[in-house]
Structures are given as structure tokens and as C-alpha cells.
């Protein structure tokens, strides 16, 4: 029996790319606003940075770095998917492997960040 699309690894990769994109677009204004405090209110910027020492904030940062990394590596996979020629009839298998690789790489990069943040 054919597996439902939603359990397909490439569907999960597509959804992860989309959700990480939304997360990043929503986070960016906060990120930019915090950096702009260097212009308007240095004390508030220092307070905000102090806040990042909190363990829960570090875990949130870990999540954000994972979103950025998984959007990067997943995005590279999509560029390959769209612009590179299929080299064989096992193209879908290649992309399943690349999708898993993208997530693993993102996990490795964000974990490295988290370990250094601790």
C-alpha cells in the first residue's frame, strides 16, 4: 500500500523548510530591534543581552540556530532539486538522503552553538 504523503520524508522536509522560514521571518524584527538599541538605548541592549544568559533563553536560541541552519541546508537541497538535472531514476532516494543529511547537519551546527553557549 502506498504510504500517505504526510509520512513521506520529503513532505516532512518541505514542512520543516516552510515552518523554519516562518519562524525566521517572525524572529527577524525582534533581532533587528535588539541591535538597533545600540543606537537608541545601550542600557536596554545590555539588559536584553543579560537576559540571554537565562537557561530557557539559551534553549530558545538553540532552537533559532537550528531553524536557521535547517533552512540553509534544506534550501541548498531545494536549489539542487530545482536546478540540477536528475542523474538517475533513483533521484527521489538521493533527495531523501540529502534531506536527512540537511537535518543532521543543522542539528550538529546548532548543538555546537548550544554547547558553547552553556
Amino acid at each position, binding site marked *: 500500500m502506498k504510504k500517505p504523503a504526510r509520512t513521506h520524508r520529503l513532505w516532512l522536509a518541505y514542512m520543516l523548510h516552510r515552518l523554519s522560514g516562518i519562524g525566521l521571518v517572525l524572529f527577524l524584527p525582534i533581532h533587528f530591534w535588539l541591535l*538597533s538599541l545600540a543606537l537608541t538605548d545601550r542600557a536596554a*541592549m545590555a539588559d536584553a543581552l543579560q537576559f540571554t544568559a537565562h537557561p530557557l533563553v539559551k534553549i530558545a536560541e538553540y532552537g533559532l540556530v537550528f531553524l536557521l541552519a535547517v533552512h540553509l541546508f534544506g534550501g541548498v537541497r531545494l536549489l539542487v532539486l530545482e536546478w540540477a538535472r536528475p542523474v538517475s531514476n533513483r533521484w527521489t532516494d538521493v533527495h531523501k538522503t540529502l534531506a536527512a543529511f540537511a537535518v543532521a547537519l543543522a542539528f550538529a551546527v546548532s548543538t555546537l552553538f548550544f554547547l558553547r553557549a552553556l
Partner: protein
Amino acid sequence: MLNLRLYMLQRLTALVMVPLVIGHLAMMIYAIQDGLTVGEILQRTQGSVAWFCFYGLFVVAVSVHGSIGFRVILHEWANLRGRALDLVTLATGIGLLILGSRAVWAVTFAELAS
């Protein structure tokens, strides 16, 4: 909903951002140890033409890329279309561009220019 120009802009900005995001990730991993302070950030970025160009290009690319990506999602998931879709795309892009440019300016040349 996505014409050829928007599609190509989306992919072009993605390509431009590949090395920028890798650089940003590397910088974060390098800088995060022992926590971040205002002084530490500004010491690295203030007066730096290189960081101004790096993050300036990053902000332009992410404003275009993010707003087009958001457009696709709003169209597919919220059924937004036509003029409303165009307006939200534009507002997202311009909003990100203004906030991002201000942030880059704040950490590079704002103090030197004042």
C-alpha cells in the same frame, strides 16, 4: 501568484545568502562563548566596512527572500490573493529592510557619524 521575476529573485537571494548564513552561523558559534556583551559586539562591528557590507547585503537579501517566501505561504495557507497579497509582500519586505538597515547602521557607523 509567483511570476518568473519573483521566482528568480527568491532563488537568487537564496544563493547569495548561502555563504552569508554560513558566515553568520560561524560567527555566532565563535562569539557566543562566555556570553555576549554590548561592548564585545560593537568592538567587532563599529567602523568596519567589511561587516557593514556583509550585514548590509544580508539584510537586503533576507528582506527580498523573506517577503517572497511569506507571500507564497500566505497565498497557499491563508488564501490571500491579488492586491492584498501584493501589499502584504511589500510591507513585509520594506519593514524588514528598514528594521534591518537600522540595525546594521546602529552597530557599524551610527556612533562615528554622529
